[in-house]
């Protein structure tokens, strides 16, 4: 026993101290056939509809958009657009399209395709979840309200030019044009698919869907005509679905699978991490994620700010990172560290049981109170909820843990006066795009504090809402740093009211075979999870 402990700890130390990993010097190779597994079936590959973390990265690769990101970074670059220009008032965006880009059906991509695709994403008939992202385009209300099917704010003077007119300055607009919902699709393919475009996708991205056997596999082949010459690196990737993560891991260890998309089950993590090949298999990347507990400001006693502050001090976040085997770091503010605007100097509420008790007594609850903590029911979330329950018990707060299916927790959170506390694990906020504003509106702003919303603290601060609008109006690229700072201040100021307990920033774990090349950052890409365009096979 001691022997094994010694061997494991020594190995871990050696790993921790080893110099730069080998991949840092690698250059991508062309070619290769990659097998990836997921537990869940792929719901849809329609870019106006698909909105889960598995199909997100596939849709990214099947289609192209005006804007995109440098692989592995949150840095925006023009993609289908060759150049773009923003007017001084931030209300007009003009894009020049690349010439000669073709859909995989052979037709050239023209400006009206861009207009059609965004109108399709906004049109209520599409039943798309992303319509609201385009809210700043002129005429949005008419289309989303069903009074029109064309957006008056999108103008296409010729086949190579798209002009967007906004009804308000929107500093996130370039990010909006890079999200999946802005993917450009050919209208004739959408119409030909007769409502089944999600199963018969046609785009102009790095890959083409060659085969889809329902419930079994999807085969993606490299698009030989993709407009960036060295992209993608692999020739083909096959996605096998319905694979239990534990079995996928065994197959990976046997060399049958190249990437286990669901990562490593919590119960196996330490065993794999400490195995001889473990370090090469585990990709452990920072994602734009914050796990938090919402404190419902409309339910007693959480309407009292002192109570909210007290419970903030009561939670031992380090212990929760240990439950996750170190796959997370403690959080003290809503923004994750990798997000622009994150305030490194902010300390938030430090874990201090005595102080928490004192504050609770000051608020009029010297003996604590009873409450309910909601959580989703898949491992490890109930265990984390129990850890929080124990921490709260230490200051006299008796919380009943209610572990339910995700859909029921979401329903409780969006019902006024229903859920006093919710641990967000399993449905925590991961950014749609790497911009701090994405962490505000739906989850902390007044707009989200409505029936069916995601602001489960039901926190609404009109002053902060005004500052948020002001920050989003700073669309001048020269003001990027000022804008990030303005947003950072909003999130640290919000903590004075303590509508949340920011608990952890969780990292994503993907397991890959030793033959897979490329930096960890393209396997846990901040904007698309696995970046199929950038991964490659070592020869």
């Amino acid at each position, binding site marked *: 026993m001691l022997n094994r402990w010694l061997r494991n700890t020594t190995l871990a130390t050696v790993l921790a101290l080893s110099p730069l990993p080998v991949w840092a010097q690698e250059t991508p190779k062309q070619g290769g056939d990659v097998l990836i597994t997921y537990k869940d079936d792929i719901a849809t590959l329609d870019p106006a509809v698909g909105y889960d973390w598995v199909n997100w990265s596939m849709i990214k690769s099947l289609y192209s958009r005006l804007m995109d990101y440098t692989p592995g970074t949150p840095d925006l670059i023009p993609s289908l657009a060759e150049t773009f220009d923003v007017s001084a008032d931030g209300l007009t965006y003009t894009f020049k399209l690349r010439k000669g880009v073709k859909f995989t059906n052979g037709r050239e991509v023209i400006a009206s395709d861009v207009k059609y695709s965004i109108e399709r994403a906004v049109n209520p008939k599409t039943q798309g979840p992303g319509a609201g992202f385009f809210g700043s385009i002129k005429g949005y209300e008419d289309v989303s309200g069903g009074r029109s099917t064309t957006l008056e704010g999108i103008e296409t003077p010729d086949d190579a030019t798209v002009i967007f007119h906004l009804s308000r300055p929107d500093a996130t607009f370039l990010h909006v044009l890079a999200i999946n919902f802005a993917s450009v699709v050919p209208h004739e393919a959408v119409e030909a698919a007769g*409502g089944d475009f999600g199963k018969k996708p046609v785009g102009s991205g790095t890959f083409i869907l060659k085969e889809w056997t329902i419930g079994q596999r999807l085969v993606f082949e490299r698009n030989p005509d993709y407009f960036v010459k060295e992209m993608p690196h692999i020739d083909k990737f096959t996605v096998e679905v319905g*694979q239990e993560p534990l079995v996928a891991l065994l197959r990976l260890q046997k060399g049958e699978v190249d990437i286990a998309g669901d990562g490593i089950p919590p119960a196996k993590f330490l065993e794999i991490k400490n195995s001889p090949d473990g370090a090469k298999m585990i990709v452990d990347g920072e994602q734009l994620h914050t796990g938090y507990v919402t404190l419902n400001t409309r339910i007693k006693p959480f309407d009292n700010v002192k109570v909210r502050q007290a419970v903030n001090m009561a939670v031992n976040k380090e212990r929760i990172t240990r439950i996750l085997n170190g796959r997370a770091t403690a959080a003290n503010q809503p923004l994750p560290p990798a997000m622009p605007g994150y305030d490194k100097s902010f300390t938030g509420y430090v874990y201090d049981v005595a102080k928490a008790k004192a504050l609770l007594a000051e608020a009029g609850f010297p003996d604590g109170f009873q409450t309910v903590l909601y959580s989703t029911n898949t491992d490890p979330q109930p265990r984390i909820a129990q850890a929080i329950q124990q921490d709260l018990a230490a200051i006299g707060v008796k919380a009943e843990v209610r572990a339910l299916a995700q859909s029921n927790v979401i329903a409780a959170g969006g019902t006024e006066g229903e859920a006093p506390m919710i641990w967000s694990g399993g449905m925590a906020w991961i950014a749609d795009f790497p911009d701090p504003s994405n962490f505000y509106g739906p989850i902390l702003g007044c707009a989200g504090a409505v029936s069916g919303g995601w602001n489960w603290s039901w926190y609404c601060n009109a002053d902060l809402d005004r500052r948020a609008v002001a920050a989003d109006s700073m669309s001048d690229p020269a003001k990027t740093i000022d804008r990030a700072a303005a947003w950072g201040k909003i999130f640290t100021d919000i903590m004075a009211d303590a509508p949340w307990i920011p608990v952890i920033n969780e990292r994503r774990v993907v397991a890959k075979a030793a033959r897979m090349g490329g930096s960890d950052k393209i396997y846990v890409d901040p904007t698309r999870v696995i970046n199929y365009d950038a991964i490659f096979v070592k020869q």
Partner: protein
Amino acid sequence: MLLLVLRRLLQTALILLGVAAITFLLLYALPADPARMIAGRSATAQTVANIRRELGLDQPFPVQFWTYLHGILQGNLGRSYAQKTDVGALIMARLPATLILMAAGIFVEVVLGLILGIIAALRRGGPVDRVVMMASFVGVSAPQFVVALLLLYVFAVTLGWFPMSGFGSAAHVVLPAATLGILGAGWYARMVRSAMIDVLNQDYVRTARAKGLSSARIVLRHALPNALLPIIAMIGIDIGQFMGGVVVVEAVYGWPGIGQLAWQAIQQVDIPIIMGVTLVSALAIVLGNLLADIIAPLIDPRIRAR
């Protein structure tokens, strides 16, 4: 006979209607809102309301149920909320896999159960009987998930005799069918044993023995057919059970059946898929029982008189 089948088919239709109504009502009463599950987190309240209206979820319950029934009567199971595709096509794409697994699983459990049951009955009270009954007890009580992983680990990972997961070749079906079969065989072995013991004590068996017939002939020709009746009924029940209840086995072996489809649909509150799979499973249970009722008189003429 024909009258029986007709009457039972009519009953089947009524049962399916009842199942549909109850399932639909339960899903309607759930606090979870399908529109919000589709809309995700960044959607505005207006987007959610739009989706709800497009799906017809803003309609009162009787209207929603009537619309659904109307579709069913025209052979239309509706469109999946999350996948935006025809539910009938999704189920049809996965049904063959479930049927293959069901057939293979029943084959394994019946063959294994018969052999073990007969052996135990012939060696009644002896050590062989005790070992077989003990083993069948373990088989019946072992959790499917554990048996599945155990078989997978031994025969696929360590020995490499069978593929670890997937669908396509005959080799793929062995481990999932064995998992189902081992668990079911326990039940069958116990039933065959007690039925055989009953029969072996009958006078006609003693007569057969007195005539000097070989013991193989006595068992296979005279005793077994009379012991088979409860087994036939049980196969009928199994058809139904396997249609809906092989979620765990399908999950472990990556078997692309309808159990997997149902499981995922439940997570996403994808009501049309949940309804579709429920109805197909209910249909299978009813038809399985009907099949057993039709076969039983063919084997035992005494039943026909009833």
